[in-house]
């Protein structure tokens, strides 16, 4: 009979809403968990879409309500009822109210009732308070709290003294969420526990937002006597926020007394957030007597206050006996220091280790103010090697534009560490006009490691031009005879990637010197664009030795993988000849891995074709699987 009634409603509602919902509900009526969920999903989609359209929501709601009253399976009703949380109104409340009292269906009824804004929903929930128990009743209390239903406070308040601690806790939370004078009164009169305290804290926060500072302060004062340390901390923080000036004496006392480290930390944080200059003074004075853990917090707090004129204080703190305090102070010098902090930072960077050294280096790289760059350049000229290295590093980190001339001198220093750091710093600061001097350094470098560093530095300097030119590299190539240096110049050209350098690379390929040929292939492999693609492919197909063909093919794949504006299909077509030219299974696998970046039918076809090759079948199948999945989620 119930099903007949439901079908009649379907006919009536279908005319207004369209037949879709009606058809779907008929399909869902015998639904069981694990069945194909297509109809459930479609119904969900209809409900979501009706959320903003009352004209569509009302007929759907009628259908859903009728469905819940039918003899559809419990799983079907479970799947359907949640849609009432989206489109439900007062019209849904009677059926949901009946479900509310049944422990098996109560949660899902609440799922809808919690979200239905109609006052009838709250009324039904209040009514259920008296006729439910156990978990069901706790759920009802929770939902009334989430609804912020002021009218339920008289019914919920007595539950604070319920014998069931879970129910009492739920009641306390609900009252905190509801707020207001009645809830406050009930919570203040209730046996104090963590849930009650938290709800009082929430009410005090509402008071603060509404500028009822005295009411908030009263709650905070009371909670400072809590036996639960986190509540005491919260009360102290709240109290300081409610009335900063009045809180100062207490904060001072706590700062001086180290018995409760948590409360002390809260006091320090409160002082950090106060605008009052007296708060800053308290913190600074507190440093001397505080234990190590609190000293770190004080330094961080003073740092956060961004008060001017703190350089001497942080400088003193940077001499603290505790490592963590020194690290915090050195970091603070990066924001509060100036040129006068630089000698200390450089010296500490040179002498300290680990986190202290890192803190000093970071601050040296970031410290602001007039004359800071000049102080660093002066340090490069005059300091001892260990400290000089730190000044040089800072010049590089800061990208000081006037540094290259000083650094070029330092790059000739007898001290190896100084030279190496200068070359690295030049990478960050040198510009195209410095290229000839840098190339000369490269040509005269004694060790391969220094030459390698210089390769990158020369390339970086030239690349700094909007239109990089390799003219100075070509000039050096023409005059240079040493193979290792020529190989370095090839590497530089590759990193820059200017087309005018390609003839030089081709010349090296024809040289007959295997070391130069290898350097030329690597140079093209490093090219930042696809200009040498064809050269590499030809080498991969018909280059000299196997190792050269392997190298060339890898370089080719690298260049195809570079970011580009090509479509995935165009990239896949570039990889096709690489697959054919791949001399060994290892390179075929490389191509298959690259293919998976380019999700398109062409890549899929290539991967499928490769699956026929037993040597790479496993990799090809994985590529097929990944590409198919990728394609299924693309429009």
């Amino acid at each position, binding site marked *: 009979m119930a099903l007949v009634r439901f079908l009649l409603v379907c006919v009536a509602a279908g005319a207004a809403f369209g037949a879709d919902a009606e058809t779907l509900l008929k399909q869902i009526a015998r639904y069981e968990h694990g069945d194909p969920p*297509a109809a459930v999903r479609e119904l969900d989609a209809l409900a979501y879409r009706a*959320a903003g359209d009352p004209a569509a929501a009302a007929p759907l709601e009628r259908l859903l309500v009728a469905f819940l009253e039918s003899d559809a399976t419990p799983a079907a009703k479970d799947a359907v009822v949640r849609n009432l949380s989206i489109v439900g109104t007062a019209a849904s409340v009677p059926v949901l109210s009946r479900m509310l009292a049944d422990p098996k269906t109560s949660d899902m009824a609440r799922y809808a009732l919690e979200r239905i804004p109609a006052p009838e929903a709250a009324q039904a929930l209040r009514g259920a308070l008296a006729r439910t128990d156990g978990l069901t009743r706790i759920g009802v209390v929770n939902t009334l709290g989430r609804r912020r239903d002021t009218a339920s406070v008289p019914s919920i308040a007595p539950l604070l003294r319920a014998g069931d601690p879970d129910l009492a806790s739920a009641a306390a939370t609900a009252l905190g969420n509801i707020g207001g004078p009645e809830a406050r009164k009930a919570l203040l009169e209730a046996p104090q526990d963590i849930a009650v305290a938290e709800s009082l804290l929430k009410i005090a926060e509402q008071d603060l937002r509404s500028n009822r500072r005295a009411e908030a302060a009263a709650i905070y004062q009371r909670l400072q006597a809590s036996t639960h340390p*986190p509540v005491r901390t919260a009360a102290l923080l709240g109290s300081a926020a409610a009335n900063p000036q009045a809180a100062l004496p207490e904060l001072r006392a706590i700062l001086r007394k180290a018995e409760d480290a948590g409360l002390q930390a809260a006091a320090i944080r409160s002082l950090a957030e106060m605008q009052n200059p007296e708060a800053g003074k308290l913190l600074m004075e507190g440093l001397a007597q505080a234990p190590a853990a609190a000293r770190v917090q004080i330094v961080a707090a003073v740092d956060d206050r961004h008060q001017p004129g703190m350089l001497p204080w942080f400088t003193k703190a940077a001499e603290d006996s505790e490592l*963590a305090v020194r690290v915090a102070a050195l970091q603070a010098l990066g924001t509060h220091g100036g040129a006068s902090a630089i000698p200390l930072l450089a010296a500490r960077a040179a002498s300290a280790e680990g986190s202290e050294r890192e803190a000093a280096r970071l601050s040296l790289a*970031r410290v602001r103010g007039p004359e800071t760059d000049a102080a660093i350049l002066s340090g490069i000229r005059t300091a001892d090697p260990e400290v000089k290295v730190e000044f040089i590093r800072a010049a590089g980190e800061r990208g000081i534009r006037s540094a290259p001339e000083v650094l070029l001198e330092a790059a000739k220093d007898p001290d190896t560490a100084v030279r190496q750091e200068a070359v690295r710093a030049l990478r960050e600061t040198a510009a195209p006009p410095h290229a000839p001097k840098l190339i000369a350094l490269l040509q005269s470098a004694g060790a391969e490691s220094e030459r390698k560093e210089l390769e990158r530095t020369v390339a970086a300097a030239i690349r700094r031009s909007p239109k990089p030119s390799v003219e100075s590299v070509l000039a050096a190539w023409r005059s240079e005879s040493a193979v290792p240096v020529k190989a370095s110049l090839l590497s530089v050209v590759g990193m820059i990637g200017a087309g005018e350098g390609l003839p030089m690379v081709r010349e090296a390929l024809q040289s007959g010197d295997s070391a130069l040929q290898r350097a030329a292939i690597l140079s093209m492999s490093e090219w930042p664009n696809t200009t040498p693609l064809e050269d590499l492919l030809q080498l991969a197909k018909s280059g000299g030795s196997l190792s050269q063909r392997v190298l060339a093919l890898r370089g080719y794949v690298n260049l195809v993988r570079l970011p580009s504006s090509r479509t995935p299909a165009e990239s896949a077509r570039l990889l096709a000849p690489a697959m054919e030219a791949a001399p060994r299974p290892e390179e075929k696998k490389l191509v298959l891995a690259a293919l998976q970046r380019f999700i398109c039918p062409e890549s899929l076809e290539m991967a499928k074709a490769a699956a026929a090759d037993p040597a790479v079948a496993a990799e090809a199948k994985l590529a097929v699987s990944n590409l198919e999945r990728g394609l299924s989620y693309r429009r």
Partner: protein
Amino acid sequence: MTITRRIFLGCGAANVLAAAVPPGERVTLGIVGCGWQGVPTAKIFLSDPRVALVAACDVDEEHLAEAQALVPGCRGYRAFEELLARPDIDAVYIAVPDHWHGIIATAALRAGKDVYGEKPLAHNWAEGRAIADAVRRYGRVWQTGSWQRSVPRFRHACELVRNGRLGRVHRVEVGMMAGHMDWDGIGHLTAPEAPPKTLDYNRWLGPAPEAPYCPARVHKVWRWILDYGGGSLLDWVGHHVDIAHWALGLDSSGPVEVRATCQFPGRPSLWNAPPVFRVTARYPGGLTMLIAGGHDDIRSGTKWIGEEGWLWVDREGIESHPPHLAGSKIGPHEIRLPVSDSHHRQFIDCVLRRSETLTPAHVALRSATPGYLGLIAMLTGETIAWDPERERMLNDSGAQRLLAHPMRAPWHL
């Protein structure tokens, strides 16, 4: 000979070294949620000699055993409440499914613990707001697992944008992974069956609606079901949108309007989070953010487009137009963002200093809000109007109802 600490420390040795650190500089840590992300992240924490792992909690005995095996003496719990009740634990790392974030995080904060919580901050906006409020209320330190802020490349990109290298930025494109990854090939296992004896399934469900166990519902893949997660959009919003916000100084702001579309290619399944989506968020000042998964025109990562060029960053690299812009140096007299080269170590630093982390809860909520609103917009088809100042939805419609999720009893916030 120098041996780096990370190499030297077998995880078992970590607690021994931590014991040698003075109490004021040591952080005792508990893990809640030991599956998948949990154990690898715990190992990262253990590479910091200041951290002692003393407790782990999981509803799956197998996951719990894996975490306990990391260090001798790490006590195991099935109920997070018992772990949080230990007064000797300073901080917790929470790596549970999204639908548990709000409850466990607020319980941890209420218990006076500092928290490193996985992203997204919460399952929905209301729970995120509850977490952020509790952090403030109890004066705790919170780090969200939006660790890209601790990667130099991302920081550099954000500093370039902040310092106006692109001129006025009028558009941001955020590309995310599309679809439903089925890492263990269990997506087809949707028929109800008895849960494994090692799993307390009722606890796993927690505040989510009652539903029978099946493998395609739980470990790793829960994210594709809206009762527990928010799909790829909410998975990645805490990374790429977080970075987009950081660059633009939007950590205390948000969109004013959000529109979205989505698609469900393929057969409907248990997994109902939209696999293909496109969210358009309009911000004050005329900025538009496009967040997309499964659209070829939006590249994975974050791309800012301004009057003088564009800049793109992802875990794979950084690019720009004009090309030299990406390598442009940030000078000391420009805007500099806080430096962290380890998100986990930065959390421990902040726990000891009682200072704010790189990704506190209130910031994470702002980063995730375009995702929360985007999901609502794509489900309802509504254009969501949002007041970022008061954090209020202005639509007077059913969309309002989706800002929070009702919870199964006895769970509540």
